[in-house]
């Protein structure tokens, strides 16, 4: 018996590590939070590399934009692009506000769900593992970023802060399988749960066959679950399948943000409040 264990102990250790990994995956332990300094030390090791990569990337694109591709045109373009971005964001807000007015929701006089205190952050890397969808930001806890904060661009939602280190934050993208949030169809106000399905897509869960959802509908976050600010655009519906044998419709949403190309994002520093939920003192 002893010789059997002596022969195969490595395999037993491998299985023990695997079981521990599964346990931590399924039920993350709070005791592991004490080991965060080790992770933070590891992040520090990577900081010079991603800072250098970010600096070089910014420098190269800066040289190209400002000197090679005509100085005046480049600046003009930049100014116009900024204006378009601002106008687009204003348009999103206005469109949502108009719909709210139509439904006489102003009678309910509840306060704005989003306090728009934001922080610009640069994307410094992507999670290259096949199973998870995440990006890394070059700004971390020192700037006031906390776990659970929303990350957006003027075009729409990007994701949620998943982990924070000094000088580095990890954003769980809306397309990750672990992401879920309360959303609604902008036109018909049908509510559903959006869940990431990889690629650049999400699916809507629990949409009854009687609910009015059509291809091309814009999907916005409802803000009811407090996970994302209200009115932020998620994407547009690209397919609606109504299987006869199923209780729910199969709705596929293409995200408005192309996560592969995104370079700068906004972190909403205040967490969205949950409407209609009393605050406990």
């Amino acid at each position, binding site marked *: 018996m002893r010789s059997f264990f002596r022969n195969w102990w490595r395999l037993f250790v*491998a*299985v023990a*590590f695997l079981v521990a990994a599964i346990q931590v*995956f399924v039920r993350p332990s709070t005791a592991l939070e004490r080991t965060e300094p080790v*992770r933070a030390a590891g992040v520090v090791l990577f900081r010079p590399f991603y800072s250098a990569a970010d600096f070089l990337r910014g420098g190269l694109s800066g040289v190209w934009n400002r000197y090679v591709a005509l100085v005046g045109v480049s600046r003009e373009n930049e100014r116009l692009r900024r204006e378009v971005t601002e106008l687009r964001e204003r348009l999103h807000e206005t469109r949502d506000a108009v719909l709210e007015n139509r439904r006489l929701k102003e009678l309910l006089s509840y306060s704005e769900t989003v306090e728009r205190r934001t922080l610009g952050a640069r994307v410094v890397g992507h999670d*290259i593992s096949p*199973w998870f969808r995440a990006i890394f930001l070059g700004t971390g806890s020192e700037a006031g970023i906390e776990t659970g904060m929303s990350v957006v661009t003027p075009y729409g939602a990007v994701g949620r802060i998943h982990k924070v280190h000094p000088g580095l934050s990890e954003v769980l993208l809306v397309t990750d399988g*672990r992401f879920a949030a309360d959303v609604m169809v902008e036109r018909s106000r049908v509510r559903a749960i959006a869940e990431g399905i990889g690629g650049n897509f999400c699916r809507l869960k629990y949409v009854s066959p009687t609910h009015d959802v059509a291809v091309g509908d814009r999907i916005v976050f409802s803000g009811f679950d407090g996970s994302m600010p209200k009115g932020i655009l998620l994407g547009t519906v690209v397919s609606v399948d109504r299987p006869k044998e199923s209780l729910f419709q199969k709705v596929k949403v293409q995200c408005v943000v192309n996560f592969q190309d995104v370079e700068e994002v906004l972190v909403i520093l205040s967490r969205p409040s949950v409407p209609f939920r009393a605050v406990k003192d």
Partner: protein
Amino acid sequence: MLFALSYLGDSLCVWWLSGFVPWFLLPDFPFLAIVFSGLFVPGIAGFLCALPPALFREITTSAPSWTMFLGSMALYFASREIGRRFLLRSEPSLLAAVVSLLAAESFSVVLLLSLSGARPFSFLWGAQEAVRIAWTSLIAVPLFLDLSVRWRRVKE
């Protein structure tokens, strides 16, 4: 050398190439370093060699905290066992070992995610993952053969 391979490889892929090269064409260098130390570096030296790449994987993968580290340690001990039981001198046996370890890891994460209710996997994803496994394994064979010769020379 293994430390440099995993650090530089991971850094290049995550912080530099990930913006424009698709994920399935980016090899998992820390994975390769862990498997190499399991297959070819015996004793405590192999274990110590596997620790930094496991930490790199933990930091650069968006899994729940410490899952990737523990999973990587399991990977090290599994590859250590394979290294002890089988003679891995020929290319096909090396290729088979790396492919099976990559496939086993991928399958276990997919199974866990599926059991937890997430379904971010499609047919296209499967094809891409197959490309990643094939690509990483093909890189592993010449790399491992070269490194094992160097390691033998160091020992001599």
